[in-house]
């Protein structure tokens, strides 16, 4: 580099910058992005994309029409119709909205609640810590799905109830981890100095603790969003989640159960593949975030 002329140096630098951009692009988790973007798009613009109303039968269509490439299928319903002759494709597209919305909102509720309680527990210590941690222990003892089912039977089926329930069930994981982080942050010099300078607990938490645990919260959130999506599908499948005729993937699977024996595979396979793809993508994305944000994790 030292002997090159000025012109060539600029060129090399430009090439270097270009290569830098390329490698940054290569570092992006392409597979999860390729999977998630279409689903997010479907969820946002379901009304524009979906060929039919997901809750109404296609006028004049038969029940249980197979996908169009099979015998008896028609291009009117690309992925076939269900037991009420509703369009599967439209239901899948609107189902993406339900799954992603519940997944994201449930994670946001759980993450905020868990992070807030974890910080309080770790920073304040004493009896606050004892109470929060004992509640966390007790709530963690119940299997998540059993606890969610219990809450769902009490609250009744609706989409926002499911968000609340999943938030209440999954906050404990955040609280545990965040508390641990805060315990060590609390001993750092800058926190001590802020305290000595007379900053209030609230100020220390908002200025010095919260920004330092947000990374962890984000990683946990990206790793658990898939779990939340599967939990929503499970609750809907059991009839205590999103109520019919709303198009949720778990509900579609549940409605498909009775016709599984008759070999109507498309009713079972398509919603399942959607869940699988979305959860897989969020898992990969979560792994990528974890590795980006925590170099120590790279080998594990």
């Amino acid at each position, binding site marked *: 580099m030292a002997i090159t002329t000025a012109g060539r140096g600029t060129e090399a630098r430009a090439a270097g910058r270009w290569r830098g951009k390329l490698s940054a692009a290569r570092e992006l988790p392409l597979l999860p992005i390729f999977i998630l973007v279409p689903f997010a798009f479907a969820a946002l613009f379901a009304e524009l994309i979906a060929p039919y109303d997901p809750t109404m039968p296609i006028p004049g269509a038969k029940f249980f029409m197979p996908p169009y490439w099979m015998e008896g299928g028609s291009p009117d319903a690309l992925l076939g119709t269900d037991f009420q002759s509703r369009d599967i494709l439209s239901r899948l597209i609107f189902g993406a909205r339900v799954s992603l919305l519940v997944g994201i909102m449930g994670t946001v509720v759980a993450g905020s609640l868990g992070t807030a309680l974890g910080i309080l527990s770790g920073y304040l210590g004493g009896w606050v810590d004892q109470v929060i941690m004992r509640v966390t222990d007790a709530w963690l003892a119940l299997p998540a799905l059993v606890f969610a089912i219990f809450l769902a039977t009490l609250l009744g089926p609706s989409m926002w109830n499911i968000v609340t329930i999943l938030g209440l069930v999954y906050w404990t994981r955040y609280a545990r981890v965040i508390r641990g982080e805060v315990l060590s942050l609390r001993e750092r010099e800058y926190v001590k100095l802020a305290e000595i300078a007379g900053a209030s607990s609230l100020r220390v938490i908002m200025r010095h603790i919260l920004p330092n645990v947000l990374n962890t919260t984000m990683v946990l959130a990206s790793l658990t969003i898939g779990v939340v999506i599967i939990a929503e599908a499970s609750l809907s499948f059991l009839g205590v989640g999103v109520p019919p005729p709303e198009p949720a993937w778990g509900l579609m699977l549940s409605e*498909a159960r009775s016709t599984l024996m008759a070999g109507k595979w498309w009713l079972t396979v398509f919603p399942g593949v959607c869940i699988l793809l979305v959860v897989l993508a969020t898992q990969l994305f979560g792994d990528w975030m974890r590795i980006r944000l925590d170099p120590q994790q790279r080998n594990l």
Partner: protein
Amino acid sequence: MRQFIFRRTCYSIVTLFILSLTIFAVVRLTGDPALLMTEPGARPEDLARVRALWGLDRPWPIQYAHFLLNILTGDLGTSFNYRMPVSELYFERLPNSLQLALSATLLSFLIGVPAGLLSAVRVNGAWDNIGKVVALTGLAVPGFWLGLVLILVFSVWLAWLPTGGKGDWRNLIMPSIALGWYFAASLLRLTRSSMLEVMRSEYIKLARLKGLPGYVVIAMHGFKNALVPVLTLAGVNLVVMVNAAVIVEVIFAWPGIGRLLYEGIFQRDFPLVQGVVILAGCMIVLVNLFIDILYAYIDPRIRLTK
């Protein structure tokens, strides 16, 4: 050691106490328990009678004391649908759930542990990559959907296996796979990371320096020690599977605890739902206590640290 057991037992009792408090409070905060304790469509005078009978008209602390006393004496109420004590129903279904959970644990062990071991021994090799894919799909494929697809392929199309119910070993295959799949993946992940950690330790280096052949180091020194956390996870998983296999049991019509819970939801049989949840929580807390004590017994470092 005695002190450790005492302290740990106290913690478990506190946990159980908070668990009962949570259930008690949640039921009362979300609605009228009298409506839940009567069958749907009850008349107002029936509701009043139920309130008096269950003491739901009395202040909360007294209600809670009764609630706790009932749990402690093993009285979890009577199922509307079965007209039987809930605890009796639970323990009647327990062996079935245990059978399914044991078979699923065995399966996940047979897949997860060897695969995790292979991945750890050849990091970034072909086996490791296969292992990564298995671990990822295991966590992403919902167990219940896997169950449905298995039924579609092996019962409907190939007609090899029965679709559900309890019978001989063939009835166990598909539900075990559907239930064990997720745990196989988590066992794989844990075995791999645990093994990697052990293989970095000093005594492994020493064993290698002594000139022991590679497989002896891996099997006798590495694997034996890496197995400890794996066994704990398997133990905890087993209890969770006994109590939380709701969807798999529903799909395969397996007469276990999960299906009991489902019947409770479906028939609006509230005492049944609440009873199963309480018993599931108790069982898990007790098993955790047992595992912790067992650990302290095996490993003195645990009982000496706080």
